[in-house]
């Protein structure tokens, strides 16, 4: 059950808008560190574009590596947004309120980051832009819709569009709040973004309805996106990749890593922005309970995937399974998957005491994503290095420094985007908090205490 905290409305507004107007020292430190990593990222990408994909560790037959793994990882992270916002909104879970914005924005930025990777991975991204967008209409040559690489960006772009719309709609009341409290260029920006929102009943109604509708639509996209990402692999004939179970397995894995990433972000916001009275232990508690379920479902699918290969006893699969389970470095990654991805965090989350301990939640959530990154690598990379019985061609893959820089840089990119966002817009929805307060208000009717407001939705 949600505990009730009653705070004056003006204090809520002041607290939640503070990151927008005030930049702490820690904030500056974060900017500088992230900016430094981001510079390295830009340099690494530039280096690769100039010289070619040769600077990576990719080879024949390992044509896909770190960048594709990272793409899958960030797409996974993006699944938190809808999980938290859409599902919890539709199920009217009250505890979602302070968490939604961070989750949605993270969805948006991790999707953008994820999408850069397949483009970068081609080595000459401008060619993709040239050949895919203003395509060769003159000769009637279209992208091949049978290719998962056409379905995949379509799904991801749809998801990104939906997310941006969704974030926008849920932010309109906050834009209005900001517009009413700012001057100068900020006022101009917020005024345009607020679309004339004045808090009239009709406007509130439209905002609420569109939020719900978008949430419902996003739910189907949410399931499809990571399914389609899994098809990048599952559509191929590669041993261990061409597995039907990968679609739901990828989706549940995405939720596991995404929701954990939200926990990480909540803890960071709490420390950085001093949101102690908004991101309270009970929020961590609720998310922790959700994670126990999601994590266990993920572990179930993980085992299923392994069992399917063992059950079939196809020698070409078994060769790769053997590598995954016994060969370096996959055996280490496997340990990460089990220990960090599941067997440390989930048992810990069973205890209410730990779920309410922010530090514990922070570190366990980090662990999950270490485990989940390892899992993506473990799933993708071994599939190529011992393809079929061509033992003459079997070759392992080791990422180059450029690839490692790009991967580290992607974390900085998401971090920077989030930080910049928090300098422009409140990272916790102000109106949602206020609405929560109002809904929490109670009045005495006769002997009974009933909510002060009756919900229409």
């Amino acid at each position, binding site marked *: 059950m949600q505990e009730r905290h009653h705070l004056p409305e003006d204090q809520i507004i002041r607290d939640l808008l503070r990151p927008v107007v005030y930049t702490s020292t820690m904030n500056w430190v974060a900017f500088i560190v992230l900016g430094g990593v981001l510079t390295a990222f830009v340099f690494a990408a530039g280096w690769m574009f100039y010289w070619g994909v040769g600077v990576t560790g990719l080879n024949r037959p390992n044509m896909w590596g770190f960048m594709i793994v990272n793409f899958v990882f960030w797409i996974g992270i993006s699944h938190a947004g809808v999980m938290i916002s859409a599902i919890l909104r539709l199920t009217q879970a009250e505890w979602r309120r302070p968490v939604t914005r961070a989750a949605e924005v993270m969805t948006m930025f991790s999707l953008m980051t994820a999408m850069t990777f397949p483009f970068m991975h081609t080595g000459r991204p401008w060619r993709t832009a040239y050949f895919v967008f203003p395509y060769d209409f003159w000769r*009637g*040559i279209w992208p091949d*819709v*049978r290719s998962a690489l056409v379905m995949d960006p379509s799904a991801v772009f749809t998801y990104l569009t939906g997310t941006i719309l969704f974030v926008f709609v849920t932010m309109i009341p906050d834009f209005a709040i900001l517009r009413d409290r700012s001057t100068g260029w900020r006022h101009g920006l917020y005024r345009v973004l607020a679309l004339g929102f004045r808090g009239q009943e009709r406007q509130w109604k439209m905002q609420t309805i569109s939020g719900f509708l978008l949430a419902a639509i996003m739910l189907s996209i949410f399931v499809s996106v990571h399914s389609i990402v899994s098809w990048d692999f599952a559509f191929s004939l590669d041993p261990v990749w061409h597995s039907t179970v990968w679609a739901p397995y990828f989706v549940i894995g995405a939720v596991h890593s995404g929701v954990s990433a939200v926990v990480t972000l909540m803890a960071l916001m709490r420390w950085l922005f001093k949101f102690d009275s908004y991101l309270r232990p009970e929020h961590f508690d609720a998310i922790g309970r959700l994670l126990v379920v999601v994590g266990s479902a993920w572990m179930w699918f993980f085992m299923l995937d392994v069992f399917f290969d063992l059950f079939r006893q196809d*020698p*070409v699969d078994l060769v790769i399974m053997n590598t995954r389970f016994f060969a370096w470095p996959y055996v280490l990654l496997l340990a990460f998957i089990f220990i960090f991805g599941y067997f440390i965090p989930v048992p810990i989350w069973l205890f209410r005491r730990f779920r309410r301990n922010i530090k514990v939640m922070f570190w366990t959530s980090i662990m999950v994503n270490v485990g989940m990154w390892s899992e993506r690598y473990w799933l993708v990379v071994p599939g190529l290095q011992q393809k079929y019985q*061509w*033992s003459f061609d*079997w*070759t392992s893959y080791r990422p180059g420094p450029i690839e490692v820089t790009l991967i580290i840089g992607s974390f900085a990119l998401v971090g920077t985007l989030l930080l910049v966002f928090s300098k422009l817009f409140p990272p916790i929805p102000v109106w949602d908090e206020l609405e929560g307060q109002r809904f929490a208000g109670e009045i005495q009717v006769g002997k009974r205490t009933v909510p002060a407001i009756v919900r229409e939705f």
Partner: protein
Amino acid sequence: MRKGAMRRREFIKLVTTSTTGAVLFTGCGIGNGDPAYKFKFESPVQNPLDVIYGRDNWYATTCQQCGAGCGLVVRVFEGRAKKVEGNPDFPVNAGATCARAQAAVQDVYLPDRVGSPLKLSGARGSGSYQATTWDAAAKEFASDLSSAGSGGTLIITEPPSGAMGMVWTQFAGKFGAKQVAFEPDERVVLREAMRRVFNSSALPAIDLAHTNFLVSFSADFLHGWISPVQLSMGFGQFRQGRSDIRGTYYHVGPQLNGTAASADRWLPIKPGTEGLVALAMAQYMTAQGLADKAKAGTIYGGISLDQYAPEQVAAATGLSAAQIQDLAKRFANGKPGVAIAGTTAAAHTNALFNLTAVFALNLLVGSVGVPGGLTLNPGSPFPSGATSLPTATSGLSYRDWAGVINDMKSGKYKLAIIHGVNPAYGLPASSGFADALAKVGKVVALSTVIDETSQLADLVLPVNHSLEDWGLEIPDPGPGFQTVALQQPVINTLAPENGNPGFDSHSAGDVLIAAAKDANQALPWNTYADAVQSTAGALQGLNRGNITATDAKTFMLQMQAQGGWWDTGNKAAASAAGAPTKPTPAAQPQFTGDPGAFPLYLLPYPTSALDYGDGARVAWMQGLPEPISTTVWNSWVELNPTTADHYGVSTGDLVTVKSANGVSRELAVYVNPAAAPDVALIPLGQGHTATPNRYSERRGVNALDLVDASKVDSETGALAYAATRVQIATTGKKVRLARFEGQVPAFQVPGAPIIEIIRPTQKQG
């Protein structure tokens, strides 16, 4: 608007509907309802009628990448040689080529090819040269020739053969010069073996298409030995050219080389025991009545076969008596059976014995001059006389080189002219060749590249590549009948032009003819083209062969078009092969080094791509995987897995190979599952030092450095380069050894083989 032209709006409509439809239908899998129907995409980019092909020319010529003399046709486009193909008409290779011939087009455009005459500008051997003009260089060469005086000139070339050999011989005669030839010692032994066994200086053809059983004693005949294309063509027929018989091939040798990989069975022997196995076979065959005892007596005259029963030699050879007996039975029964020996069999102290003992087996079972057997090649069709073409001549053996080197050291020679060979690389360093050359007053090199020998010259005269030059060759081994290969320039030497360096080279023959003229010793021709054409013209008078033209010009044109002249009817008399002229005494191989201290036999071997080092300058050859280890661009040492375990090393570990002659070299290990446990295999052909040579310089080591050069074949004096023992010491260092094979030793996955193998149903040869 023209009638029938499509309006823009219609066009847009059409495009939109058809493309949307295509996307929808294929996307939704609607199609035409036929599950077999696939969305097949026809690219309008193919635009077949729009492509205008440039005009190319195909010229027939002769391959000079090795001594086999295959016929080529070269595709020439705007004066550039683009592609080499086999000349389908030419009887030696019937249209096929080996990998080295394919790389000829890269050889001719070598980026480090000498671009102009070079005059030494520093100390001898320093490699610093200054470009000079042909006029100045030719004048200098002519005056050197005049001042060297009779007997003061030393000429080092390939074994003189064909038109170039003819020019050289005449040239040497005019100036009273000493003419010596360099070739890998293995071939010196082979020639001597042919003379002794078959009384023939030409190499024999093998009628593999009709052979039933073939045994090769170490000869790498599919990948480099004497005439690999001719033999490979035959091998294809041998295996699958007959519907009823599939020829059986056994390989006896200390190494599973690329050729042995195609054998039905490989019998690994101790290095240098090829001759012993052959004698044991002969003994067994005669004892079992499979061969005529009296005949064996003549053939192996002087050797008492009774001492060589399989049981007696088995231990020394590393085989079991049963294996030798089985081999002998198959060989005797597989009529016609053929036995050949070469490559490393000819690199021992008993080299000549090894080869003669094996080739004599053919005489013993009557496989000479019969279908499916060895076919001796007929003599030259050219009339003998002053301008006869030298054929099937031999190089000096290593022992004979010592004499030449002593003469050089003694200051006997005022001028050395070197053309087309690289003895400074091909003779072991301990021979002292380089030092001796320094004692010669003046060294002139005729070369396309700066190699280890031309690097020691005072004057480097850039000569045309074989694709840019004339020539006339009698392929050796020929196809079994009289054959002459005509070489013609298929391209002109590229002149320097806008940014392209170009090569200002001359035909070597022209250089000699001009120099002789300038030194007032004119040769009988005005140009080398003259020499070739007038000599080839003599064939017209024979009134036989493939060319029927009656006038000289048409005759020459037809010969150029066909790539040569041949007369399928003119074969050597079968009786030409009599008894061996001079029997070779049986001998065990001797090795330098005590087996306790130096536990491994060093077995250097020529590779198919680099041969004895000639291929190393070409990028495609450096980058061509060695057929067994698949290693490229480097030198390495191959060890058996148990041997490698013994030293605690694996592929890529750097070890010091120390030979019993005191030299040591660091080499990366390649663990070769087929290497014998007591053998260290090191490829020849690398370790070049001459610069500039971007593809070969400072790559790997020259395996000859490890060889004890005092070990020579007792009969011919040829260098026994496989008669040294080595020890291995680990260095603890690891290097990345470039190879084509992946990271695991490529064994076929059990139950799911890439290469499917079945038992033959045909009769086994």
